[in-house]
C-alpha cells in the first residue's frame, strides 16, 4: 500500500463512455459545477465584450483614477477609462492568450505523449528524458529570458508559455496511451495489418481525448497565471490589454499610493476567479477520468511536479 493517499476522495467512477462523463462529473461534484459556471460566465462576457462593453476602450470618461460611482461601479483607471469596459476586454485578451498557449502546449504535449506511449522503446526513453529536462527548468525565469530576448508581443508570449507547459500533458497522455495500447482490440487490429497512423487516429486518440481535455483546462489556468506574471514584469504586449497588464499598468502609475485601489483589486479578482474556475473544473474532470492522477489537479501551477503516486512502470 502506498503511503500517499488519494488527495481528494471521490466516488468510484466508471470512465468508459466519453459521452456523458462530463455531465456525470458535473452532477457528482459541486466543485466542477462552480468551476464550470465561472468559466462559462467569464467566457460569455469576454466573447461579447465588443458589444456589451458600456464605454469605449480608449475613451476617457472621467478624471484620472476616478472613484467608483453609480455610473462606473468599478471606478476609472489612470487614463480615465471605465474599469468595467477594461475588465471585459481584459478578460477577452487573457482568455485568448490562455487558450492559444494551451493549444500550443496541448499539441506538443499530446504529440509527444502519444509518440512516447505508443512506440515505446528508445523513442519513449528519449522523449521522456527531454520531458524531464523541461520539467526541472524553472519556467518563469526561462519565460522571462526568452520574452526579454525575443521582445514583447502577444505571439511571442503565447509561444513561450506554450513551449513550457506541455510536459505534464505529455506524461499524462503517455500513461493513458500505454494502457490503451495493451488493450485487446488494438492488438487485434495490428494483427490485421493496420498501419500505426490508423490505429493512433482511430483507436488511441479517442480514448485519450477526454483526459487531454481535462488536462487542457488545467493548463489554461497555468497559462493565464504565467501571462499575468510576464505582464507584471513589463514583458507583456503593450498594445493589448490583458488583465495582467491592467494590474501592471495601475501599479506603474502609482494606483496604491493614490488611493485608487479599484484599479488593482478588480482585475486581480477576475484573474483569480478564472484560474480558480479552471482548476476546479479541470481537477474534477481529471479526477473523474483517472483517480490515480489526482495529484495533478491540486497543483494548478506546479502540476509539472513529478507525480507523488506510483513509480517505475506505474508512473504516470
Amino acid at each position, binding site marked *: 500500500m502506498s503511503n500517499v493517499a488519494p488527495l481528494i476522495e471521490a466516488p468510484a467512477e466508471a470512465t468508459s463512455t466519453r459521452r456523458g462523463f462530463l455531465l456525470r462529473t458535473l452532477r457528482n461534484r459541486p466543485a466542477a459545477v462552480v468551476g464550470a459556471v465561472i468559466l462559462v460566465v467569464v467566457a460569455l462576457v469576454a466573447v461579447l465584450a465588443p458589444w456589451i462593453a458600456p464605454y469605449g476602450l480608449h475613451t476617457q470618461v472621467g478624471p484620472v483614477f476616478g472613484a467608483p460611482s453609480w455610473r462606473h461601479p468599478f471606478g476609472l483607471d489612470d487614463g480615465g477609462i471605465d474599469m468595467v469596459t477594461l475588465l471585459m476586454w481584459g478578460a477577452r485578451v487573457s482568455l485568448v492568450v490562455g487558450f492559444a498557449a494551451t493549444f500550443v502546449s496541448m499539441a506538443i504535449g499530446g504529440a509527444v505523449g502519444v509518440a512516447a506511449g505508443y512506440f515505446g522503446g528508445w523513442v519513449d526513453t528519449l522523449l521522456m528524458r527531454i520531458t524531464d529536462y523541461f520539467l526541472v527548468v524553472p519556467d518563469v525565469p526561462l519565460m522571462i529570458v526568452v520574452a526579454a530576448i525575443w*521582445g*514583447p*508581443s502577444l505571439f511571442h508570449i503565447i509561444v513561450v508559455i506554450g513551449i513550457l507547459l506541455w510536459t505534464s500533458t505529455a506524461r499524462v497522455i503517455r500513461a493513458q496511451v500505454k494502457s490503451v495500447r495493451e488493450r485487446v482490440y488494438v492488438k487485434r487490429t495490428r494483427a490485421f495489418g493496420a498501419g500505426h497512423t490508423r490505429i493512433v487516429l482511430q483507436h488511441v486518440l479517442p480514448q485519450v481525448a477526454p483526459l487531454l481535455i481535462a488536462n487542457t483546462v488545467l493548463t489554461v489556468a497555468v497559462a493565464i497565471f504565467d501571462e499575468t506574471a510576464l505582464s507584471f514584469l513589463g514583458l507583456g504586449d*503593450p*498594445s493589448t490589454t490583458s488583465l495582467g497588464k491592467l494590474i501592471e499598468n495601475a*501599479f506603474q502609475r*502609482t494606483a496604491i*499610493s493614490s488611493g485608487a485601489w479599484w484599479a488593482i483589486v478588480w482585475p486581480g479578482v477576475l484573474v483569480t476567479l478564472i484560474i480558480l474556475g479552471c482548476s476546479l473544473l479541470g481537477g474534477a474532470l481529471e479526477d473523474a477520468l483517472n483517480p490515480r492522477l489526482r495529484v495533478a489537479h491540486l497543483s494548478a501551477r506546479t502540476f509539472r511536479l513529478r507525480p507523488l503516486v506510483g513509480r517505475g512502470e506505474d508512473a504516470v
Partner: protein
Amino acid sequence: MSKRWLAAVPLIVAALVFATTATGSGTKQAKTGGTFRVGTASGIDSLNPFVAFNQDAYSTFEYIYPVLVQYDSHLKFAPFFARSWHSSNHGKTWTFKTQPNARWTDGVPLTAADAAWTINTSIKYANGATANVAGLVAHITHASAPNPTTLVVHYKQAPGNVLGQFQQFFILPKHIWAKHLGHKGAGLKTFANPAPVVGSGPFKLVRYQKNQIALFQRNSSYWGPKPKIDEFGLQQFSNDDAMVQALKSHALDAIETVPATSMKTLRNAGFVVSDVPGLDQTDFIINSNPKKKKHRELLNLTVKAAFDHAIDRKKIVAVTFLGAARPADSIIPATTGSWHNPHLKPVSFDLKLANELLDKAGFKRGPGGIRVAHGQKMSYNVITPTDVQSIPRTFQIIQADFAKIGVQLRQQALDSSAAFAKMTSPNNTYQGFDLAMWDWTALIDPDFMLSVVTCAQYGGWSDSGFCNKRYDKMYAKQQLTPNQNQRRKIVWQMQAFLYKQRPYLWLANDDSVSATAKNWVGFKNTPQGPFNELNIQSLTQVHQK
C-alpha cells in the same frame, strides 16, 4: 481687597508666553543637523565614473568629487574647484587657478595635479576604459599642473564649449586611481570604488549597497560651503508606488521625481510639491535618411509639416503628463536658458491645415479613407521602446488624430536595444523603419543634443537617420567657436534649420516634479531635479524649519 488684579494674571501670562515665543521665532535661526532622507526610483548603478550611466550616479559624483566649474541659479558658469580661469592663444590654451589648501577625505592634498592626471588618463585610454568620458576631453592634447594651484589645458583647436564640458568632468584622486590602471587601463573600469569613497566635496559617501542605499556624511575637511545637515541618504525603490508610500508614511523626507498621478495625492497630504520645467523631451521620429528606399514620401517637407500640425500637444500634456509638461518646439529645450532659440514656437494643432497640406502634396484618399502616396497606402509602423512610460498613451492620441488626416499608424513595441537595432538596420544604414517615438534628456550645453542629428552619429546616437552636409558644417563651426555670443547665433540657426527639416516632431517637454515634507526647506528643484549634476546647492542648503 479688590480681586480685579487677578483678572490681569491671564493677560500677563499670555503676554509673557507671547514674548518668549515671539523672541524664539524672531531670531529665525535655521535648525542645523539631522539626517535628510531622499527616495529615488532610479538609483546609482555604479560608483565608478567610467562605468556609471544613471543620473543619480552623476549627481552623487557632483557632491563627492571636485569639479572645475558649476552652474549657478541662472545657468551661468560659477567658480567651483577652479576659482578663476582665462583662455589664451586664441582659445587653444586654458589656464585654471584652483582652490588652494584643499584635501581629499583621507588627508592627502588635493591639487591641480590631480586634475591634470585625470584629464591625461581620460585621454590616454579614450578608446578603451575611459571611453565613457572621452567626449568631455575631446580636442585636448594634454594637461599640466606647473604648480599645485594652476591647471593648464592645451587644445588642438579652440573649442566653443570648454566650460560646458568641464562642468561634467569629475576630478579623481590620483593616489587612489593610479593603482588601478591594470592591463592597458582596463583596471579603471573594473575598480568598484566601494564606499567609503576617497573624494573631496561637501559630503563623503560612507555607505553604499546596490539597489538599496547610499549614505552621505558631512565632510568636515571640505574647502567650500558647509552643508547644514549632518547626513543625507538616497534610498532606492524598485517602483514609484513604494517610494510615494514611503514618503506618505514619513519614512522619507523627500522624493526626487514624483509620478504625475501622485502629484495631487501628495499635495492633499500636505507635502510641498515642486513643479519646474525639465530637460526631458518626448519626440515623434520621422526617418530622414536621404537614401531611404521605402516610403520616400516621408522625406517630403510638406508631409512632415502636415504630420506636425496633426499632433495635439495640449492634449498630450493634459492626458499623458496630467499637466506636468509643456508643448515642445525645438531640439534644445527652453530650460537650457539662452541656448534655446526663443523665436521658435510649438507647432499649432490644425487638422484642417494638415489635410490641406496633404491634399496639396497630391496624396488623395483611397479605400478606407487612407491616403495613397506613390501608389502605396500611407500606413506605417511606429516603433516604440518599451521603457518610455509616456509613450503608450501619447501614441493613442496621435494615432486617433492621424486617422483624421488619412494616415494609418500601427504601434510596434520593442525593447530599447531591439528598437534601436531595428531602426538602424541593416548595418547602420537606417533602412529599417519609417516612424518611431522616443525621448531625449538634454544637457544644459547644447553640443550633445545638436550632435545626435549629424552624419557622424550614424550607428552612434542617431535615431533619425538625418544626415545633411549644411547642418554638419554648422555643427562643426559651433564646436570650434570660443566666443559664446557668436556660438549662440550659430546654435539658434541650427535650431531654426531643424525646425523646418523636421527629423523630429517635438511633443512635450516634461517637468521635473519633486516633493518634500513640510518641515524641510531648501531642497531646491531644478530642470535636472533637486538632486542633480548642475551644482551642490540643494543638499548644502537644505535644513529643517
